[in-house]
């Protein structure tokens, strides 16, 4: 039994998990999530970590490997760091064992990671560096529209005539949206329009990485059922043979993957050390 922690520092939130690894099986014991929101990030990491430990009922001293991922290289108490696509693939696989690709949608990026049954990364694609179509954009717009983030999804599903968003740039799209409001377009239709435009980009990414079969959506936007529905629609429309799925713990995928690789690495280090001694 190995107890490991995974810490995923994103650009908008910190996610932590505590996992138990018995070499054949892993169990998720505790989770912690904190939005960063202008605060000093070490503080946020501590808060999220404490929350996860508390839920797991584990003491910090019991943790044998603290694995970080994302932008967590500065976490002082880490044991090792893994790159985020490696971890999202592994985490996605843990959550949905049939998944052969993870679509990670976070605050500033979208990326597709294709993997095999052991979590080996086969291919990956990222959205380009321009921020249009990212979670941050959605967040900004929903604030303008006065829609709480957790309502975005259900609202979008109520749309009857989605209004397309034309601009590539998220800032200019914001103006589009303001125009729509003043033209009296229903909020649901605006939100759906944004979801469709984001879905278009993300599905394009899936298509270019030649994904097939089960794809698990991870990251913060996995919770957004509206975006999920829009992506499913778009994928069907474009004749893609994929099945999108998500998981209640999708937002923790990176952290989970890190924790699992941490255990893997720890075992390997021990083997190496053992071999050294022998």
């Amino acid at each position, binding site marked *: 039994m190995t107890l490991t922690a995974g810490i995923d520092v994103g*650009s908008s939130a910190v996610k932590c998990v505590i996992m138990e690894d018995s070499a054949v099986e892993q169990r998720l014991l505790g989770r912690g999530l904190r*939005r*960063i*929101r*202008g605060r*000093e*990030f070490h503080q946020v990491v501590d808060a999220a970590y404490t929350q996860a430990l508390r839920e797991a009922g584990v003491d910090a001293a019991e943790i044998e490997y603290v694995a970080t991922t994302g*932008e967590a290289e*500065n976490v002082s108490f880490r044991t090792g760091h893994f790159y985020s696509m490696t971890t999202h693939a592994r985490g996605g696989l843990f959550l949905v064992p049939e998944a052969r690709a993870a679509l990670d949608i976070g*605050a*500033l990026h979208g990326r597709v990671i294709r993997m095999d049954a052991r979590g080996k990364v086969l291919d990956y694609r990222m959205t380009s*560096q*321009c*921020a*249009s179509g*990212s979670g*941050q*954009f959605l967040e*900004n717009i*929903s*604030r*303008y*529209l*006065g*829609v*709480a*983030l*957790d*309502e975005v999804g259900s609202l979008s599903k109520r749309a009857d005539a989605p209004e397309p968003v034309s*601009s*590539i*740039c*998220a*800032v*200019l799209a*914001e*103006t589009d949206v*303001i*125009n729509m*409001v*003043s033209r009296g377009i229903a909020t649901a239709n605006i939100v759906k329009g944004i979801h469709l435009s984001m879905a278009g980009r993300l599905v394009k990414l899936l298509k270019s990485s030649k994904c097939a079969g089960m794809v698990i959506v991870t990251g913060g936007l996995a919770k957004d059922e509206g975006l999920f529905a829009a992506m499913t629609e778009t994928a069907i429309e474009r004749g893609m043979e994929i099945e999108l799925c998500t998981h209640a713990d999708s937002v923790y995928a990176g952290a989970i993957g890190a924790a699992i690789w941490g255990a893997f690495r720890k075992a390997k280090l021990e083997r190496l050390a053992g071999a050294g001694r022998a």
Partner: protein
Amino acid sequence: MKCWVGIDLGSTTTKALVVDDTGAVLGRGITNSRSNYDVACEIARNEAFLDARFTLFARALERHTDLAAHAGLLIESVRLAFRSEQHLYLLSELEAQCRAFAAELADPRRAKAALDEIFEGMREVAASLFEPGTKPRSDFFRDIAGSQYMSLAEGVAETTKLPFETLLGVYDKSILAVESHVPASSLQDLIERALEVALGSYRISDALKADLRSAVQGVVEMQLVETQTVGTGYGRARLPFRKEFIRSEILCHGLGAHALFPGTRTVLDIGGQDTKAIQVDGRGVVTSFQMNDRCAAGCGRYLGYIADEMNLGLHELGPMAMCSRRPVRINSTCTVFAGAELRDRLAMGQRREDILAGLHRAIMLRAMSLISRSGGVHEEFTFTGGVAKNEAAVSALRQLVEESFGERTINISPDSIYTGALGAALFAVREEFAEAGAVSMAAGGPA
């Protein structure tokens, strides 16, 4: 009294300006453009007319032998009292909205308790916001109320165990509602109430008080006839005006800057999502201009995102950046990534002041390129638009202009944000004279 109006429907703010037949400014109004365009116009226009009455009130006082000496202070306290009244009024509207939305939540009882606590806190602060000598963080209710609400809600979320996101959602929805309707209560009522409040703390003879009241009465009753309105700005196409009464913001900024500083030959306007470099001749007529391309990197909204990210008012960015000793170099000014860039650098251990200073310089660098594209700075230079209110932006600009073009006179008006509206108002005056077949006025109008 006849007056002319210029409306600048910008991408972030809507400005209205009222001028008299000499082109002198009577009143200014400003509001967020975020809400409905028509409403934004309406609000800005109302505010400008109201402000015009303050100006007329001041003129009346100045004509009064005994009151003239007090005029400045008096007007100021009436104004503050007025703003305070207005704030309280909006706060009560906001509260009502929030409560209505909260009632629909899954746990209305807990939500109510949370709102009780938040609004109590907000009202407490509200009293002190408009005391003489305090500098408000922003001109906008949205910003002032928003930052208070946010910091209070954070604590309340912990104690009531209501998710912060939920509380935030309630606010976002409510502020939108508050911003999107023209206040029901007559603003004129407010002005009179404000006068009473101001008089309460003012020791002058009853006779003078009576004179004052009648001066206010006279001003309030005076008919302000909106003779002609010219619209401009990013959203001008949405204004319900005839085409002749809509002017490109380039021409308006050119003319406005010329009116403020007749020696101007180059104008830089940084608005919410566009940056324009304009060259004008000795009459304020535009001779060439350049605008940023579709990418909105480095425009005013950029600073907005940064302010949001730091939970600061726009007013506070400049002063903080000015405290920097070693600005960092920043290359990317993608507006949407602004927040990320900031977080990234904070995580790297760089100082907030230094990052901010770097960001301001990066924005002005982009602007400098546009200026060079339009032909450079050879004579007097005027910086207009909202960002000109930001001292760090101005100081970066001064430095860069000197580095690239040598020493130049750089004009900044405290009313820089109204320059476009001023240009539009002057066009309105001119349009009317032209229509009447009279000789039109000099291009700048008598400023």
